[in-house]
């Protein structure tokens, strides 16, 4: 099977992960801009981070046969440093329309503060103006209220619900998101957020419509193979294979291809790799023979 993991922070993962992902069938990924584990202190750090998402990280993934797209935005945590946030919001439009940027994201609420809301609204307006998809991060604390508010504010700004993806849902929030007409994404984490077993039951209960499974794997304890593993569990527990395909490939593709930045035909063709290429002065190789035009299993 082939998989689309529409939320993963590859910049903090290794080439071992990329190889394992390709082997497990992950063919396409989206890397949304987020914080980096500790707060950044200057706008230039965001410039280089955004540049790496549209540049080196895309190249690195392609070297393993994985199509890498990204989302650009100021995350909610760092929106609370208002002096810095104002500078970063000036930078966001300089990266948000580059090739392969499929959404504004991940944006939304963390503590649901006025500063977070100002940054969220500014970026929703940018998305509305340029008909971009929006990837919304939902808060860990007071999640249910945070999700309702993020939907209400997006609606007020005028972002169409079919271009709104609410991430990190659980059993308690999914109904609100689906009723609003937005896409409901689920992050499968081994210990927090959502486990694969619970995900199986959510799909069984709600059906595949507008449900999306992702890994959100990052610099913490997380699993870049969450999507293929959850798909496997769904199949073992009797979920219709067509539903599995919708929730681990097609829905993410449908949601984010609205950006016009995904060449669906190329993505559905069999991927090939050429590791001889270089990005700036870097190769992903350290002396070993490059794989050239090798077929990859995803």
């Amino acid at each position, binding site marked *: 099977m082939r998989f689309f993991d529409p939320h993963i922070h590859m910049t903090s993962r290794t080439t071992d992960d990329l190889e394992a992902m390709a082997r497990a069938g992950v063919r396409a990924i989206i890397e949304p801009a987020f914080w980096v584990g500790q707060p950044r202190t200057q706008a230039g750090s965001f410039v280089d981070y955004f540049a790496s998402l549209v540049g080196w990280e895309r190249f690195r993934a392609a070297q393993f046969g994985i199509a890498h797209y990204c989302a650009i935005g100021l995350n909610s945590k760092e929106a609370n440093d208002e002096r810095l946030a104002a500078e970063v919001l000036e930078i966001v439009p300089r990266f948000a*329309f580059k090739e392969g940027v499929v959404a504004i994201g991940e944006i939304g609420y963390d503590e649901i503060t006025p500063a977070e809301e100002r940054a969220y609204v500014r970026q929703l307006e940018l998305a509305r103006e340029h008909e971009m998809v929006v990837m919304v991060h939902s808060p860990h604390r007071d999640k249910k209220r945070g999700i309702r508010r993020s939907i209400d504010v997006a609606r007020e700004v005028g972002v169409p619900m079919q271009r709104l993806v609410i991430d990190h849902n659980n059993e308690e929030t999914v109904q609100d998101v689906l009723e609003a007409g937005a896409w409901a994404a689920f992050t499968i984490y081994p210990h927090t957020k959502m486990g694969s077993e619970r995900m199986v039951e959510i799909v069984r209960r709600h059906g595949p419509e507008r449900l999306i499974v992702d890994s959100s794997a990052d610099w913490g304890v997380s699993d870049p193979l969450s999507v293929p593993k959850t798909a496997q569990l769904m199949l073992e527990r009797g979920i219709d294979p067509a539903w599995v395909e919708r929730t681990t490939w097609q829905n993410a593709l449908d949601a984010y291809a609205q950006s016009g930045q995904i060449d669906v035909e190329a993505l559905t063709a069999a991927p090939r790799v050429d590791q001889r290429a*270089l990005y700036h002065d870097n190769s992903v190789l350290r002396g070993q023979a490059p794989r050239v035009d090798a077929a990859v299993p995803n």
Partner: protein
Amino acid sequence: MSAARALLQGLLDARLAARARGWLADAAAEVAGLAPGPAGRFPTLISLASRALPRGPLAPNADERGQAAAVLAGWNPERWSILDAGRAVLVLSRADLASEAGVAALEDCFRHADLGELVSLYRTLCLLPEPQRFAWRAGEGCRSSMRAVYEAAACDSPLPSRAFDDGAWRQLVIKAVFVGAPLWRVHGLDQRLDPELARMALDLVDERRAAGRRVQPELWLALGSHAGERGAAALERELAGDWAPGRAAAALGLARAGRLDPVRAALAREDDPLARAAMESALAGAHDQFSFAPLHGLE
């Protein structure tokens, strides 16, 4: 309006659908009205061009390429994309290009550019007024190991051979073989060869042979008439080798150094068609940089 901008606009008018043409006209008008310097929506429009203009090659025909050469000798948009041409029109629409503010605005755009934008911007540099002001920036492109970026800065443009200092120029030439770019497409190469560049190329030949690796055929281009005794010996060794593209390049290289006797002798015993063609061409006096085109990319 510059002649280059008018030519590119004409090429695009013939290739764009009404909607894309309208977007470009609006964007160019917006750029023309911007205040001097880096502020404003210019970089965003350069990015948005990828969403408004179609993908695909510009594919100028022979007549159109002739017009380009008439506008600027050494400029060849043969490998440009439609997007490159659209972005060049936007750059050339800036009203401040002759001033320091215009240089600062372009530099700001370069520093935030993605791969595709870098390619378009580097390709545009030679069309700007007083392009030698951008020699350092073009040199940055020629230091890139991303082949697409290197080629955009180094190939099919008169800027490097005219504006680079000797150090940057020699680095450009040697770098071409490192990134696998077509050295034969570097404009003005044959007119700017020297003994120091030949020495650098021959050192690289020795390095490759010491490592048991083949010499890229186009590396021999860098010797020109400055091969000297050391170069002649290296070329004759290649001519006697068991790799046909190497023998072909060595024949051309020896002819460039004015040493035809070994080429004649080699032709008498050569049976590989590629090598024979190169030897015959070399003996007939056709051994300029373009004669190496069939050897590009052979490893």
